[in-house]
């Protein structure tokens, strides 16, 4: 594999460019997320990113500024949110020695090079990646954890190979129950997530090498990350290097203790109520957002105002989006066809602006499986899976 190593000249060339960036002045301004203690720094140039909301320097937590979602269906790589758990972020990976090992309850153990993986049929899926704790800062009562606004989500075109191609080459033995994925971030408790066999064998579950046509940057899991369309991003394991087929449910920390929600129909419970049985978080309930107006914006009275935004659901394709001024009578928005079942969908409508005063704007999405955003926000102790109807208070003048 030696002859595949980057040439020293090329290496130095790249280093020259990025070393210059390292000494470029970093612009930092303050932003206020809409909750108590929500002041954050906006940084530009950190970890190869454009302007991002700095939630944590180490291990990096970077939030997408909300205006990015109004600019297009696809979230640019350099504005895509970043979430790492532990300080053992794998920044340097030797692609000549990197292997994806497949073992456990299989007919044939595999140890695949990146070239082996590249030789499998390519597949592309457009899908939303959303942190399980997106919008945690808006929980009431508040809960500890990363205090995200609504920007821990993004929509990208992911390219790679179907996980199924790899699983079929290994051959799952009868009695396989779950498939566990681990990456190179090895600090204890070592990160690992599992999917049931049926979920893992869906052709749209990818071992992705690219997002939006670019090789994955390290912050997004270079050289290989799992993409599980419809599922919260905790399952989208970065720097995947180990796949283990299990004959029992996974009892590792990240499945058995972390990222669990109440085993109630909507995954929520009542603050202060006795602890209830929990289950691993899984697919994303529908959400929708207005992207061209923000809370507190001023509108001219007695005009028609264009409203537009995004909607998505991880449980089934978005079927309709509606807007309302009062939360009881709803009007249908036009829903763009572009975007696919797993990605953001754009919607738009014309909203009559009333007389001077306050005007509320609410928006809600429903999917083909009948899931509809609730008007009031649910609550769970982990601050996961928020999907209540969003509302803006607009000022009419």
């Amino acid at each position, binding site marked *: 594999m030696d002859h595949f190593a980057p040439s020293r000249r090329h290496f130095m060339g790249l280093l020259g460019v990025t070393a210059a960036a390292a000494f470029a002045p970093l612009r930092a301004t303050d932003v206020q997320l809409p909750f108590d203690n929500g002041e954050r720094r906006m940084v530009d140039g950190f970890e190869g990113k454009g302007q991002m909301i700095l939630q944590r320097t180490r291990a990096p937590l970077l939030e997408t500024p909300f205006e990015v979602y109004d600019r297009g269906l696809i979230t640019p790589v350099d504005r895509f949110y970043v979430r790492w758990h532990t300080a053992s972020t794998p920044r340097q990976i030797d692609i000549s020695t990197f292997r994806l090992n497949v073992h456990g309850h299989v007919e044939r153990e595999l140890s695949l090079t990146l070239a082996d993986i590249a030789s499998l049929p390519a597949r592309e899926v457009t899908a939303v990646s959303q942190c399980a704790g997106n919008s945690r800062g808006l929980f009431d009562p508040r809960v500890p954890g990363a205090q995200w606004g609504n920007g821990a989500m993004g929509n990208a075109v992911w390219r790679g190979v179907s996980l199924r191609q790899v699983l079929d080459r290994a051959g799952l033995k009868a009695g396989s129950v779950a498939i566990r994925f681990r990456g190179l971030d090895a600090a204890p408790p070592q990160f690992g997530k599992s999917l049931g066999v049926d979920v893992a064998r869906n052709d749209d579950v990818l071992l992705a090498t690219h997002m939006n046509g670019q*090789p994955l940057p390290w912050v997004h899991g270079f*050289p290989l990350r799992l993409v599980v369309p419809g599922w919260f991003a905790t399952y989208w394991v970065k720097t995947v290097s180990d796949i283990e087929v299990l004959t029992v449910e996974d009892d590792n920390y990240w499945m058995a203790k972390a990222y669990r929600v109440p085993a109630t129909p909507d995954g929520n419970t009542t603050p202060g109520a006795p602890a209830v049985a929990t289950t691993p978080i899984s697919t994303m309930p529908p959400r929708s957002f207005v992207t061209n107006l923000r809370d507190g914006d001023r509108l001219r009275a007695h005009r028609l105002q264009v409203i537009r935004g995004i909607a998505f659901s991880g449980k089934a394709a978005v079927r309709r989006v509606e807007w309302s001024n009062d939360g009881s009578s709803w009007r249908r928005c036009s829903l763009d066809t572009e975007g696919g079942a797993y990605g953001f969908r754009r919607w738009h409508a014309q909203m009559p602006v009333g007389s001077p005063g306050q005007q509320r704007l609410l928006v809600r999405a429903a999917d083909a499986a009948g899931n509809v955003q609730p008007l009031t926000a649910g609550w769970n102790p982990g601050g996961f899976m928020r999907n209540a109807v969003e509302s803006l208070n607009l000022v009419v003048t």
Partner: protein
Amino acid sequence: MKASLLALGLAIAPITVSAQVAEPPLPLAGAPPSAAVCTACHSSEMIDYQPRLTMAQWRATVLKMKAAYGAPVADKDVDDIAKWLASRQVNAGQAAAGLRRLP
């Protein structure tokens, strides 16, 4: 093999040098010596950006860091660290209350 790697765009590992953000230090004034361990694995924003938490929530957080993430905190130090985290947050909360809220 080379061609397929090139096709994937993976022949060159990404260079990870990038502009760095100065990590805000955790002011340790009034802290028990054992609290220095808090920023061994994460920068101090993880502490400073929390909502106002009760003493019980801070204590549970310290215990979680110890039990699940292997933070080397002695049992006898758990309460001292939790008390300090809760006490410094009163000041942070007062500062935050004076901030302008953006839409």
